[in-house]
């Protein structure tokens, strides 16, 4: 019963996606929408297939900068989050500064990075990193701050140090919060990369899309969007896999379906 339920779920997912594209194709065809406004999925597929050798290095570039930026952003975010979540003083004092920094639109930040580091890969990595720090910090700090004191009491009675308690209780307890923020951070990190590539780069999907839209090659723009979407899904799936492995204990409602 469990297996057929799973297959049914997968089938439904595939049907939903296929249905979405089928609907899109039908609407474009029947309403005679111009290619310059909304290309048909078949057209996008054709462009992807035809221009893949051209697009591949750009895809890799975007993927590389996003993954590096994402990793850097998450590491810094976790570190800051741990600091803020473990100290009540830091928790109360640091937030205004953090919120101030994160409220700055990253569009405004890219030119500054370009001035400091030149155009190309580095500003893309930096923008991607900076844009996903804040959600990670907030979630990790919240997870730590909301750890039930009763869990910590067990350790305190044993004479455990604050570091012991952080490692044994705080960090496992905050993992579900961290993974939740990773889902947001992944999508944001693509935003950061593409932003930077659009403004100041000569490689990457963002750059390709900007040039394509300048030439009114809308199908190519959409092809770029597609590639970004697929990369996003891949990263999300990877994160999801680790989430299930490491925080299965938190999502018990699903336990029956996993057996």
């Amino acid at each position: 019963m469990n297996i057929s339920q799973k297959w049914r779920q997968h089938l439904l997912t595939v049907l939903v996606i296929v249905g979405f594209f089928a609907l899109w194709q039908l609407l474009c065809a029947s309403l005679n929408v111009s290619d310059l406004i909304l290309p048909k999925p078949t057209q996008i597929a054709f462009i992807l297939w035809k221009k893949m050798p051209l697009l591949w290095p750009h895809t890799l570039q975007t993927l590389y900068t996003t993954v590096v930026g994402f990793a850097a952003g998450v590491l810094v975010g976790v570190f800051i989050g741990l600091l803020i979540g473990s100290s009540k003083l830091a928790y109360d004092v640091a937030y205004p500064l953090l919120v101030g920094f994160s409220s700055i639109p990253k569009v405004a930040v890219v030119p500054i990075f370009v001035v400091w580091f030149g155009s190309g890969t580095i500003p893309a990595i930096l923008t991607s990193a900076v844009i996903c720090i804040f959600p990670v910090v907030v979630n990790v700090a919240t997870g730590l701050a909301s750890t039930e004191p009763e869990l910590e009491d067990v350790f305190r009675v044993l004479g455990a140090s604050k570091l012991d308690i952080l490692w044994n209780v705080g960090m496992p307890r905050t993992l579900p919060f961290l993974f939740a923020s990773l889902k947001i951070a992944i999508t944001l990190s693509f935003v950061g990369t593409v932003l930077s590539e659009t403004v100041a780069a000569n490689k990457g999907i963002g750059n390709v899309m900007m040039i394509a839209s300048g030439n009114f090659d809308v199908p190519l723009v959409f092809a770029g969007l597609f590639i970004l979407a697929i990369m996003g899904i891949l990263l999300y799936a990877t994160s999801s896999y680790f989430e299930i492995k490491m925080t299965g204990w938190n999502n018990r409602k699903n336990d029956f379906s996993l057996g």
Partner: protein
Amino acid sequence: MAFIELSNVSLQYGKGTVALKQTDLKIENAEFLSLVGPSGCGKSTILKLVAGLLKPTSGAVIVGGREVGLIGSSPIQTSTRIGMAFQNPTLLPWLSIRDNIMIPLKIIQPFRAQFSDKKNTAFKDKAEALLAKVGLNGFGDKRPWQLSGGMLQRASLCRALIHEPQLLLLDEPFGALDQFTREELWDIMQSLWIDTKPTVLLVTHDLREAAYLSTRICVMSSRPGRILADSAVPFARPRTVEQSYSADFAELVQELRMCISHARDDQATLKELNAA
């Protein structure tokens, strides 16, 4: 010198509730002391003070010859090994039952230094032996949510005992359980105590439980907490549940009840007089 000593200890929560007022208490080595009294009389507070989870507003709490403050955030620490079982089992949901009860071995020296070597051998056997003793054979790999309340409390007791503590603090550990499970756990508790004879401080509102398990009972009154009576329990060990329904047992329980009841009446009268 007594093993544990509370010396003129008072505790006030913030600017509000006075949980304890100028309390003195001495506990000797290998004593099994029960603190009984109505809810809110300060029994759990005394336990937490001895454990070092709370700091007294005034007075001193001395355990094993050293003054006890807040463990972990103060250099003044007790060198006594303490095991504690709370009213909620609070096992960590991301660990198996066995890993949960091995936690003290991870934290406390000298076990901590050997933990990475022995965690799959000697320590694991230790954990399994304790689990078997409390009747949780084979549940070591399960997760906390797969066990019932009674089973979790048994696991919590194992966790409190695995590091061979000199002092065992029990905060109404059987409060949330049914009568049968409770009587079963009393027997287990008794046999565990006979094995290693740690000093035990048990907080309970069940007078029969106190009479069954302890060598000495202290009756406390409501806010502010004070010790009203302090009596030894004369029955020989090992005691049985049948004994706990005998006449002299019932007499002891009645005495304790009367003591608490008088204290509550006095308080009620005092309130009326103040209101008038």
